[in-house]
């Protein structure tokens, strides 16, 4: 608007066009409408995906200096460190090979036993290696953005793990990237089990100090400092048996019926550059073709509410 009136701008001391208050009112109403639409109606998911895809080249440019520096650093690795690392990796791989052999034997044995019992087969979940592009822009939400998106078949809800334990969960997917909410975020909950006695609980992120907590457990609960929490797998998202956290504080106060339990995540939440994104296991059904259809079913479920609104 100011542009159209520019030929009149000799002094330019006064701003033409609508008054500042009118402009403010217009844009304030517009943003309040946007906030309400985004928070309550979730119509803007596709819009956001589209714009993020548009911004993707810019993101690549912004990441270029850091990746260049890293690449040069890797190139200039001295030979001694490489040799040392190689020896270390070799011994590690030998140890792992021995463990893997044992694991294979156990797996076949387990499968046979399960067959004997007639229980559902526990499916192995394929995982994909993703690289962290950057931390979330907001330092007060614990999120990272990784380089795999819908184009690579990533869907919201997948678990993110590293070699030591659970890191978080994919909460938002864009065409070329996706957002992983870390277990320490306030909005993320992980169903866990105490390794020592099998007690089930739900661990919530605390949103600060990169710790988690176990709320709503009675004061006489059998949890001690040093207990290891593993995923219970009952949510159908996280594979069972992955390490999540270790209890660092177990405190009871006489005025509260609940125990105050703080735990520290075991995975290298803020250290790594790579994550594994684990596919969501297909629901176990007696018929195999039902299980094949489950991803399609979730997709139609997602579209269905929008259609219903359109009809009304």
């Amino acid at each position, binding site marked *: *608007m*100011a*542009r159209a009136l*520019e030929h009149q*701008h000799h002094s*330019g*001391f006064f*701003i*033409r066009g609508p008054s*500042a*208050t009118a*402009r*403010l009112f217009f*844009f*304030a109403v*517009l*943003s*309040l*409408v*946007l*906030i309400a*639409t*985004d*928070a309550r109606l979730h119509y*803007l998911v596709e819009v*956001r995906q589209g*714009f*993020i895809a548009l*911004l993707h080249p*810019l*993101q690549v*440019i*912004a*990441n270029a*200096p*850091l990746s260049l520096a890293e690449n040069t650093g890797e190139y200039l690795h001295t030979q001694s460190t490489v040799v040392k690392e190689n020896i270390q990796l070799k011994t590690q791989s030998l140890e792992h090979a021995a463990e893997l052999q044992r694991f294979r034997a156990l797996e076949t044995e387990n499968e046979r036993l399960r067959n004997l019992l007639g229980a559902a087969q526990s499916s192995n979940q394929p995982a994909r290696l993703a690289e962290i*592009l*950057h*931390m*979330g*822009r*907001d*330092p*007060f*939400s614990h*999120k990272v953005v990784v380089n795999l998106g819908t184009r690579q078949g990533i869907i919201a809800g997948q678990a993110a793990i590293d070699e030591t334990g659970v890191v978080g969960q994919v909460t*938002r997917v864009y065409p070329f990237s996706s*957002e992983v909410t870390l277990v320490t975020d*306030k*909005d993320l909950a992980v169903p866990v089990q105490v390794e020592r006695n099998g007690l089930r609980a739900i661990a919530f992120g605390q*949103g*600060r100090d990169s710790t988690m907590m176990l709320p709503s457990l009675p004061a006489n609960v059998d949890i001690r400092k040093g207990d290891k929490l593993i995923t219970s797998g009952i949510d159908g998202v996280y594979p069972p048996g992955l390490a999540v956290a270790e209890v660092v504080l177990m405190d009871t106060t006489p005025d509260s019926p609940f125990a105050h339990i703080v735990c520290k995540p075991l995975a290298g939440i*803020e250290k790594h550059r790579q994550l594994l994104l684990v596919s969501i296991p297909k629901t176990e059904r007696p018929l195999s073709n039902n299980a094949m259809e489950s991803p399609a079913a979730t997709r139609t479920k997602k579209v269905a509410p929008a259609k219903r609104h359109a009809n009304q």
Partner: protein
Amino acid sequence: MRTNSLKPVYFSLGVALLLQMLPWSGVGLVIRPEFILLTLLYWALRAPHLCNIGTAWFAGLVVDLITGGLFGQYALAFALTAFFAVSYQRRLALFNIWQQAGYVFLLLVFTQIIVLILKLFSGGEIPGWEYFFPSISGILLWQFVIFSRINIDGRSNKA
């Protein structure tokens, strides 16, 4: 001399966006100044006929996109800040550099408070005092830019 071309405005906003999108992490992320907001304030105070509340609103929308938060919270905060910047812009030309810097600092803190209120409404939790670090680093960057006389037209320096 007045600038009448929109090119430097959008170019500088683009550079600010790129700076904002750098892969910040750790301490850098906590103290990272709001580059886009600083650029907006600079143009809104210097050339309000080129960069007004509408520009601020759209820039805020882009910030909403890259932060991945609710659509419109930064847009609202930036529009409100731009309103206060623009409505006192003529008076501000009479101030000296330090008074101007004080006013800009107030605007930066004001923006953060608005964003904080909106986040609390949508279920965030109260962060610590380090939440306001970007305002402090922002005003330091502002001083640096003013003193290094990058693109200063002389008017704000003479006053």
